């Protein structure tokens, strides 16, 4: 017997459609089993909400437009504890508002997905223009020690696939997962081929057996839902394995926070996903992610055609930082070029793993890099010595 | 609700260990059944004592107004 969701979505099976990245992400959520969306309109993420409002009732899910982004993530977290797989989507200003509740979701181990279709900031910035300025906010935006998972798609197809992956990682590690899209990818329209509904791998929620505690005991404890008569206590305050608050015992806090970090740090290799395209004799490597990976790949291919060996590394997982892949690249080349639509946020992170020069190729102002801009930088630095780009402001 | 039959004997149960000595029950008992006791509990508060149980009509005001669930009326 087909579920309503199955029968609705299997209509897309193996079809190729011409969609926005935003739309593809929304369909990814539906394929992943999302049955609750709360959001607030914002460019360039509103199309995600529009698709969810249209499709969720057709798969027996619920859409609610809240009064702001704080309320949106609040409602998402509430829905998850009531049994939902839930998501919200926003852009920079809304993402800033969500930071406190992202910390709450980390502390309470609430699996959920937050899509941030990044736009040019700070503040209202260039509301309709793309940027990659939130990558460090995704890592450190909420207060206190914590780890996070964040992924960055580079194509419309990947918007779909990484949204599914975000839901799966959220369930597997009981953590909020941030999909770091950008306005360029969100508003890019290109073809996407849907998988067959039954071929999509879905991580189901692991629920606790009676008497098993939901906030400790193992690195990723099983969850409990409301309404099961277990009288669970969910709090953003420091708590014991039972969930009950204990804010005055040093060891309770240390055990909790180190476990919340350890469950991600220890799984870094498993979570990390990158695209490595290495060639013999490369003296320079290009490291990119999200929309910027597209002109970066173009420049790498052009350079190779012109006889210059260049390595290419695309980060699909941004957090936890795929340090092993970055180290592999750093061991091979003399120079790493990092084009990004910000003033060198990931370039700085790359510097932590290599003694070789890391050259940020920053571009802000809402216009993506061109292939030629990146190609020129490869040409200027391809010999592995000296630098003509990347002076940090 | 106030008992219609004031002659029914009420039993006032005071859990001294839960009491924090706020005296609301003493101040608002309509028939002055309660008073501050001379004893002190483990937390250092003076719980109320029953001085005139026979006057109690079992209105349960003390029971419902008590912030600590420290006083209850048992109709026997």
């Amino acid at each position, binding site marked *: 017997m087909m579920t*309503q969701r199955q*029968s609705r979505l299997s209509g897309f099976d193996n079809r190729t459609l011409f969609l926005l990245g935003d739309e593809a992400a929304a369909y990814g959520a539906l394929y992943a089993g999302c049955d*609750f969306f*709360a959001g607030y309109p914002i460019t360039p993420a509103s199309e995600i909400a529009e698709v969810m409002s249209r499709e969720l*009732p057709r798969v*027996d899910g*619920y859409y*609610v437009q*809240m*009064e*702001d982004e704080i*309320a*949106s993530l*609040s*409602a*998402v*977290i*509430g*829905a998850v*504890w*009531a*049994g*939902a797989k*839930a998501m919200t989507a926003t852009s920079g200003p809304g993402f800033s508002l969500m930071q406190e*509740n992202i910390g*709450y979701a980390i502390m309470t181990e609430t699996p959920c997905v937050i899509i941030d279709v990044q736009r040019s900031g700070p503040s209202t910035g260039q509301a309709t223009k793309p940027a990659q300025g939130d990558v460090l906010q995704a890592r450190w935006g909420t207060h206190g020690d914590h780890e996070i998972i964040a992924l960055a798609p580079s194509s419309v197809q990947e918007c779909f696939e990484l949204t599914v992956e975000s839901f799966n990682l959220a369930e597997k590690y009981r953590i909020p997962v941030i999909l770091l899209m950008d306005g360029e990818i969100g508003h890019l329209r290109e073809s996407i081929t849907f998988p067959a509904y039954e071929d999509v791998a879905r991580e189901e929620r692991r629920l606790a057996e009676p008497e098993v505690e939901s906030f400790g005991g193992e690195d990723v404890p099983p969850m409990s839902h*409301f*309404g099961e*008569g*277990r*009288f*669970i206590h*969910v*709090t*953003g*305050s420091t708590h014991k394995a039972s969930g*009950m608050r204990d804010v005055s015992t040093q060891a309770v806090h240390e055990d909790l926070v180190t476990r919340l970090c350890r469950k991600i740090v220890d799984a870094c290799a498993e979570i990390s996903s990158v695209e490595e395209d290495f060639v013999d004799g490369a003296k320079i490597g290009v490291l990119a992610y999200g929309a910027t990976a597209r002109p970066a790949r173009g420049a790498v291919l052009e350079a190779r055609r012109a006889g210059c060996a260049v390595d290419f590394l695309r980060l699909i997982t941004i957090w936890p930082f795929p340090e092993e892949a970055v180290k592999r690249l750093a061991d091979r080349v003399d120079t790493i070029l990092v084009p990004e639509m910000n003033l060198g946020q990931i370039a700085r992170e790359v510097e932590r793993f290599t003694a070789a020069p890391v050259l940020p190729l920053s571009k802000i102002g809402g216009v993506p890099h061109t292939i030629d801009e990146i190609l020129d930088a490869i040409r200027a630095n391809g010999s592995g010595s000296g630098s003509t780009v990347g002076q940090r402001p | *609700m106030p008992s219609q039959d004031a002659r029914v004997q009420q039993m006032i*149960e005071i*859990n*001294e*260990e*839960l009491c*924090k000595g*706020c*005296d*609301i029950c003493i*101040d*608002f008992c309509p028939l002055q059944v309660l008073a501050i006791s001379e004893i*002190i509990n*483990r*937390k250092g508060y003076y719980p109320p004592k029953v001085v005139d149980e026979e006057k109690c009509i079992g209105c349960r*005001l003390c*029971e*419902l*107004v*008590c*912030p600590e*669930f*420290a006083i209850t009326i048992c109709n026997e």
Partner: protein
Amino acid sequence: MNDEPIIPGPARPLKPHRLLKFLRQEILPTAFCPGCGCGTVLNSFAQAVEELSIDPKDMVFVTGIGCSSWIPSPYFKGDTLHTTHGRPIAFATGVKIMRPDLKVVVIAGDGDIAGIGGNHLVHAARRNIDITVLMVNNWNYGMTGGQVSPATPFGVPTTTTPYDNPEHPLEAAELVAAAGANYVSRWTTYHVFPLMESIQKALEIEGFSFIEILSQCPVSYGKMVDMRRASDFLKFYRDQSVRVHKAKEMSAEELEGKIVVGKLVERQRSEFVTSLRRINERFREG
């Protein structure tokens, strides 16, 4: 605690308080200050649950940050979502949409509900979502030491209005009534019997139900206004309160400084989650 009680044990074994079954008894007595009205609200709430014979398994409590959020969390033995400051109504919205069969109850203070979370309050009332909100109004931020709140009366000194409060308080109950809630009342911890009955009504009614409960803070607030005993507040509530129907016949000047108590609104506007779920029925097969 190892020390022996200084008091003699009771002459006969105590009959257990019949409402203790609703509480996490192992953590009693509460952490509330002596005479705090939060315990009285908890008491009235537990009594209402008892009167309605609601199984606590069918309830979810959602709270914020502050003294009154501790009323259900951790004391009432039920599923509890203790959220970020100001956001319990928004969290509760997600819970209720997914589990309309559960009674979702928000208990939080004037800071949470009328201050930082005021916008969520207005919009939840506008949606008329089937949630019960008890706003425990103690006229100040008590947990942080007695700062001015959006509900602090005009002209009153607090730790952050040392020269008296220059702002007017928000009349939260009237606001919620105007925003579209199905049930709104205001009571105080002096009016325990009508308060308990009002909580019953709020729990029963479909749609957004809101009770503003004036509740004493003899420690943080009382220290600034020389009302250091709980009874000082209860006498004030008793003497200054005016029933809704009486208040209608009074002038604005006569109502100055008065506390209007009673039911402000009871109506049957359509409820949000019911309407939301009705949309899904259009697409249900068979």
